[in-house]
């Protein structure tokens, strides 16, 4: 047993790029399908899978455009170095933000062109420093990435790609549910120059235009160049204003890097709200400026925390990708570890039932913890935290107060003479009042709470509260909430809970929703249609959100749990495609398109789950 053989340096193993070169096949487009044909030493020009896919069949933009799209059959080749930006806007801040977004767009193009890997361009090898660089702590991309050229530059048939972005109306860079996200994109070839024009009314529309442009560009491993259409025209707008993903960072801690990687995927899929479930009963990883004791007592360890700078960094990064960060400090329930230091500071019990046993008496999941609704210090602390979070992620018209799963038996131990439901309602109203104080005296237009027994009453005014509906999609509460005039965001457990299907993590109690929500289940879920909502009620549906609760998920498998299933939600909410298929069957063409989108995620370093055997990816339509 020679040690030298223990770590083989095989040629194949050195090929670290996650999308392999597949030179043994060429592809032909027949009946809108790419057919795989052996290409063993033949003299005819080889057509790679991606080049065939991008010019065969329906448009490969995910989510599918909603208004108009025209793509020429002719394509051109170029290198990322040929791409230049010109911004046309009267708003200086918008110009700066667009420049930032474009810089990251170019970084992504370099990944797509396999340039940010050391080694020859024909045999890319992943370098640790290169793979780390895309998530560098600084928001500004390193200049060397653009000054230096790795590998051999090849000349395409285009000498330049001029991208002109025009933001005509709004100079607003603040997220709101009224952001105009529409965009128009057109490309035109003039000689050896490609003119790309993105026209939008706001930064956010322009940002989505960039995501579409990125999906009109692909890498061909035959000439190692980027390719795009000679002419194209896309006009697009989302059906729903709120297209979200919730990540729970309390059951398990997630690094800033993994959160940013998630946001990159969201940006490519044109999702716009990252709901950050920052804290829960298990841990309090956020380091508050005013009350650092929360993290000192509540974080799993000193290194498993988010500083204010981290939160700001994530929010600024997310804006580059057109994604709003919505922080949630869950309250009054789901608040325990981190809130147990009150008495030592002379503030009384800030929370109750912390880690109390037997847990099933006092909460829905161990450990227990619920804020003390009669302690004024509790409200003061919440106000300060809201203030801090709004400073780093706002200004905004949307905030999340939590309000999930209050266990009245917990409070009953202490307040046996009180109307507990009323106490809960008072808490939410008081939290709202504190939020208003934290937001310079103005309540955000949409303040969200999870659906609960409380939202089934009319205690919370529908003019101020939006309800995130997580219960089953057939529950009566879905109709009642809309009838009671609330705006809603759907996150139905039976379709859009991505944590389902991994069994119970404890021996007692109901700790599992099952089965696994496949991407088809996520995609087919269309509650507004099934509920037959009239126009008025449909307008109350702000959108939807997939939820990744992390009892059984940590950083080691975040990507493959989220993607590409989250992309299925993206198309449901952006495009809201209608079809005549049975409820549980996805149209065949969607398989092909989501498979290509999944490959795009993998190109960007997101470890998305496989959808089917590789044979089925190479032979679209054969496995349905």
């Amino acid at each position, binding site marked *: *047993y020679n040690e030298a053989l223990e770590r083989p340096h095989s040629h194949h193993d050195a090929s670290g790029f996650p999308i392999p070169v*597949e030179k043994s096949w060429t592809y032909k487009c027949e009946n809108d399908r790419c057919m795989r044909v052996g290409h063993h030493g033949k003299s005819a020009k080889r057509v790679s899978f991606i080049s065939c896919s991008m010019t065969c069949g329906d448009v490969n933009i995910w989510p599918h455009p909603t208004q108009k799209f025209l793509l020429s059959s002719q394509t051109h080749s170029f290198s990322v170095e040929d791409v230049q930006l010109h911004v046309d806007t009267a708003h200086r801040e918008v110009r700066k933000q667009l420049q930032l977004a474009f810089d990251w767009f170019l970084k992504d193009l370099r990944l797509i062109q396999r340039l940010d890997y050391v080694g020859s361009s024909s045999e890319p090898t992943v370098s640790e420093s290169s793979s780390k660089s895309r998530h560098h702590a600084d928001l500004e991309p390193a200049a060397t990435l653009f000054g230096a050229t790795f590998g051999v530059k090849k000349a395409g048939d285009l000498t330049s790609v001029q991208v002109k972005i025009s933001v005509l109306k709004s100079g607003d860079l603040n997220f709101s549910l009224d952001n105009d996200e529409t965009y128009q994109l057109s490309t035109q070839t003039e000689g050896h120059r490609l003119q790309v024009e993105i026209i939008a009314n706001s930064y956010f529309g322009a940002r989505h235009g960039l995501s579409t442009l990125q999906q009109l560009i692909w890498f061909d491993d035959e000439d190692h160049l980027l390719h795009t259409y000679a002419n194209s025209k896309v006009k697009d707008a989302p059906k729903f204003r709120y297209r979200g993903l919730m990540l729970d960072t309390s059951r398990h801690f997630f690094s800033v890097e993994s959160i940013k990687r998630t946001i990159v995927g969201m940006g490519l899929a044109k999702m716009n709200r990252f709901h950050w479930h920052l804290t829960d009963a298990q841990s309090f990883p956020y380091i508050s400026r005013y009350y650092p004791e929360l993290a000192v*007592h509540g974080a799993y360890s000193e290194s498993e925390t988010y500083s204010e700078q981290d939160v700001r960094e994530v929010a600024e990064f997310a804006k580059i990708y057109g994604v709003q960060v919505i922080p949630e400090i869950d309250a009054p329930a789901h608040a325990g570890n981190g809130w147990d*230091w009150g008495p030592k500071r002379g503030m009384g019990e800030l929370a109750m039932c912390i880690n109390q046993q037997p847990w099933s008496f006092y909460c829905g999941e161990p450990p227990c913890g619920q804020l003390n609704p009669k302690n004024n210090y509790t409200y003061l602390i919440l106000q300060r935290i809201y203030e801090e979070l709004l400073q780093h992620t706002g200004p905004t018209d949307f905030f999340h107060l939590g309000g999930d799963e209050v266990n009245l038996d917990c409070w009953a131990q202490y307040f046996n003479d009180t109307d507990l439901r009323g106490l809960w309602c008072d808490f939410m109203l008081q939290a709202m009042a504190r939020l208003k104080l934290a937001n310079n005296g103005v309540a955000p237009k949409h303040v969200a709470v999870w659906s609960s027994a409380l939202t089934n009453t009319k205690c919370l005014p529908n003019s101020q509260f939006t309800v995130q509906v997580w219960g089953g999609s057939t529950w009566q509460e879905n109709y009642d909430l809309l009838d009671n005039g609330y705006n809603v965001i759907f996150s139905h457990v039976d379709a859009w809970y991505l944590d389902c299907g991994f069994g119970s993590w404890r021996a007692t109690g109901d700790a599992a929703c099952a089965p696994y929500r496949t991407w088809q289940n996520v995609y087919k879920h269309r509650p507004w249609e099934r509920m037959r909502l009239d126009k008025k009620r449909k307008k109350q549906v702000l959108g939807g959100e997939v939820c990744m609760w992390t009892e059984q998920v940590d950083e080691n498998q975040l990507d493959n749990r989220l993607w590409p299933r989250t992309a299925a939600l993206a198309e449901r909410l952006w495009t809201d495609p209608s079809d005549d298929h049975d409820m549980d069957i996805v149209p065949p063409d969607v398989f092909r398109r989501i498979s290509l989108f999944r490959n795009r995620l993998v190109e960007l370093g997101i470890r998305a789950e496989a959808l089917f055997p590789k044979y089925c990816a190479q032979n679209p339509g054969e496995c349905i």
Partner: protein
Amino acid sequence: DDVGSDADAGSASRKWLCSRTDICTAEGEMVAGLQYAPEIFESQRDCRLSCGKYGAIWPMPTGKECTISHRRVRFDPWKVRFHVVAPGEAATQFLRETNRLFVSNLLKECIRNCTLETSKQILVRSTVANESLVLDWPTDESYALVVRTTETATFVDIQATTVYGARHAFETLSNLVTGSLSNGLLMVTTANITDRPAFSHRGVLLDTARNFVPLKFIRSTLDAMAASKLNVLHWHVVDTHSFPLEITRVPEMQRYGAYSSSQTYSRQDALNLVKYARLRGIRILIEIDGPSHAGNGWQWGPAAGLGNMSVCLNQSPWRRFCVQPPCGQLNPLNDHMYAVLKEIFEDVAEVGAPEETLHMGGDEVFLPCWNNTDEIRDGMRARGYDLSEQSFLRLWSQFHQRNLNAWDEINERMYPGIKEPKSVIIWSSHLTNPRYIETYLPKERFIIQTWVESQDALNRELLQRGYRLIVSTKNAWYLDHGFWGSTSYYNWRTVYSSGMPVGRSKDQVLGGEVCMWSEYVDQNSLESRIWPRAGAAAERMWSNPKSSALLAQRRFYRYRERLLARGIHADAVIPHWCVLHEGQCL
């Protein structure tokens, strides 16, 4: 403010205690009325090393002797000295490599800094009685491990019959070590452990045909298997979808069957994997599936003048020709197919260890495929067969018998020193129906890998008929389940609780395998699908515990943390709070 000096501030300054109920508890969170051992530990992981009869050892030792002290010795991993006592040069060299792997694993437990100015010496002596490097079902994998500490040094004495027992002892020794929050590593001062596996076949099936798995991920699978004392990687390397393995005698297989030229395993890759695995106490059992599940890679027959070696290849609509697209089933009437298959077997025999055998597949033969193929129907009639199911089963069994003969001939020629003919393994199927298995598959030569559900009578019936079994209980050990159709996910508790059938004699049930079929899995989710659940099966097959998963959970969570430390992206199975607060999330 005074928060920084608060006794409860930060986990770094907390002390931990071990309760009489084997729960590690942080100081300040002790339960009134519960008794605690007097020793104080610096961290939860420190406490876990010895809290409970089996401490943090995974899988649970099976010998009568298992004592672990609560005291610790602090040491620098570079100050560990090794002494090998082995009868032959090969065994000596193997153990030297094992020593190096052990140090490498120790280093992965370092938290802050592992260098110590003055460190106690750790002297490890491993003594092996047998010089053989053969790893087979009869191989003795037992060991005895004694740790004792004096004023000057800590002595570790490992006694084993074979190098594989010794390597398992080193694995257990790594479970007696954890990183210190301040400096260096901590090891228990005293331990006395005897251990041996309950089953000799403890496997993981890895399917690299439906989705290609790069070598790096196969090696990480082997690393995780080594950490779990699993000893067989069942490499389902080819299937209808693709044929990525290089066959030097028949290069067309890979050329026509691989997804791409960069998604292949060369002959050298396979040889290197076999060596890498063996050093970790793992055999690589290659499966060349057939007659079904054989398609892409076999389509070059007509152009080469060999006729259709595989039929129904990539046929549509696939539901008429196979159970899963794409279709492909070998043509049992084509002699050229047998000649090619024999060449494939020769390559496989060369790549594997001399004592290694072959998995011939044999699952899910779709008789309508053959019945829908004119060439085969005509050929059967020409041989005097009718087209009944019985005739097709007979044809199918002849396929296996003919391949068995080829395999025997290859081994006689290639490894004349091995006297006994090697038994081959096939999947349970219609052919292994108890009503006629004895007609078609002699028990002396065929080992059956069953994949029936736990309550199915097949295992019992085959055992009664004297067949040797490898068990892959579909409704507990199929790790691809839960993500498609109406299948369910099996969490680690379900995997752990799935029992093994009992044979008439001790070695009739060779063991089992968890199966990672890769229709919906590639490198991006492979590790989180397999681990740490496969570790639960590892304890089932090594220890065959009578106790429940409930009692194993604290050791299991620590085992998962060790996998993470070794770079395996193992799934989370419970909120982190529950890992840190033992016994609070029942």
